């Protein structure tokens, strides 16, 4: 039995190096030549992964245009190729890549749009769970309320941004009317949630982002309330709880 290592290492390394030489050990028995043949694999790798990123980040593609998006995706794939065959998880690092990609430094808000699209996708594929209804909260003794901890639905994803990301996202959905977005119109925190079948993106009022963030860190209600007030004096605890309960945000109270 031969113990020669299979030539798969050089084959693998050459796949993500479009300008590099053809790896050794492979041959063309007939025309076309070996480079043309090996390039089929290179193209397959890039084309399929670019498609996967395009499926996950349609708004980024719309904002940058198809050609620019392809070029950006190629750079990302070379820098951060997927590690797992579960491609619905690929792209978690795309926002961070956009943030540090020198040619995109003028679009400082773009990375947060990528975060929002990833949050949407994570909510879409998250575990299913039945949200708590109002009746679960009616049973709680009023004196205990400040100390309760609320477990969020497994689909809940919070994106906090100093830019109007939800407005930009909505403006760039298929069928939406193109319009100008004032980048100085203010910060938007967004909660992505899929209580049933559909992912919903909830734009959060001032204070609500800090409130949800504290609850996600398993802080008791009282501390989450404090965090919210620290962000906005106008935070209304009762109104927020009513909104989040009716949106199906919570699955457990303890």
């Amino acid at each position, binding site marked *: *039995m*031969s*113990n*020669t*290592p*299979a*030539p*798969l*290492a050089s*084959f*693998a390394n050459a*796949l*993500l190096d479009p300008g590099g030489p053809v790896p050794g*050990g*492979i*041959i*063309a*028995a*007939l*025309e*076309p030549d*070996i480079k*043309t*043949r*090996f390039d*089929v*694999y290179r193209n*397959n*790798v890039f084309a*399929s*992964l670019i498609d*996967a990123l395009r499926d996950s980040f349609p708004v980024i593609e719309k904002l940058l245009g198809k050609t620019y998006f392809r070029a950006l995706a190629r750079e990302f794939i070379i820098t951060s*190729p*997927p*590690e*797992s*065959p*579960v*491609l*619905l998880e690929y792209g978690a690092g795309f926002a961070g890549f956009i943030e540090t990609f020198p040619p995109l430094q003028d679009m400082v808000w773009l990375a947060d749009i990528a975060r929002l699209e990833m949050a949407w996708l994570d909510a*879409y*594929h*998250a*575990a*299913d*769970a*039945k949200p708590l209804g109002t009746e679960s909260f009616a049973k709680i003794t009023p004196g205990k309320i400040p100390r309760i901890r609320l*477990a969020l639905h*497994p*689909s809940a994803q919070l994106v906090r941004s100093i830019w109007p990301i939800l407005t930009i996202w909505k403006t760039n959905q298929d069928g939406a009317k193109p319009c100008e977005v004032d980048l100085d119109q203010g910060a938007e925190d967004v909660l992505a949630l*899929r209580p049933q*079948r559909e992912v919903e993106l909830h734009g959060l009022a001032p204070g609500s982002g800090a409130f949800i963030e504290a609850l996600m860190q398993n802080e008791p209600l009282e501390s989450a309330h404090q965090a919210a007030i620290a962000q906005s004096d106008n935070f209304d605890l009762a109104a927020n709880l009513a909104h989040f309960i009716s949106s199906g945000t919570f*699955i*457990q109270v303890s």
Partner: protein
Amino acid sequence: MTLSVAPITAYSGAPVPAQAGIGLKARHYLEIIETRPALGWFEVHPENYMGAGGPPHHYLTAIRENYPLSLHGVGMALGGDEPLDKAHLKRFRALVERYQPGLVSEHLAWCRRGGVYYNDLLPAPYTTATLNTITEHIDQMQTALGRTILVENPSTYVAFEDSAIPETEFLAEAARRTGCSLLLDVNNVYVSGVNQGYDPYAYIDAFALHAVGEIHMAGHLEESLIPSGRLLIDDHGSDIIEEVWNLYAYTIARTGPVPTLIERDNNIPALGDLLAEAARADQIMQSQNRRARAS
């Protein structure tokens, strides 16, 4: 936390019949649920259902209740020279337990190396060393899943200097050693035949047809931007061509009816177009059956 996983009922563990099936695509979910077309079975890539929950599982569960199912993996890297990914085996096993598929298949190919997943079915040299490794990998996957799998012949664009075993012999020996079945992709035979310069009919003649438990049929693309020679790309992006239908009829004449998948992954057409190709495969199988009974 309450996980709402619907139980699989009517078609739990149902075998995949010796009829045509099609690859299940998200854009066809609702139409299939609403119209429940007459079709033998559906096949999915398990990697697309490895999220924890959400609509993909909801729809697959609903469709699974009315049709037998086949899981066709693209991410296991059976033909690679590294140990299998244990986390991926575990995820795969969980899906098998959840959906009770009638068939489970993978490829004579690799797709992952050095911690990078390439998302393509890459070729392996047909050597004794590769045969020994893939035997271990198939054994490991079959043990992890508690069932036999099918292994598919790849479409290839290059050959390896070190390859010493014909592909048909390589697959036959892997099946003999592991007890796995073979998935014969007739389009891949045609594509590789043109690309590597062999007669696809001679390939079918040399194939271990007794071990074939499933057939794949698909369209391919002819590369037009090359200066000389011919190169076919297995892109599953168009209708099945007549030459591949003829090769299929030739194969079915030797195997009898076999579960046959119409595989389409790009330029996905209306559901009706895929059902029409499935009906054509069923017709070929039925007319072959009639001929067999008459003789």
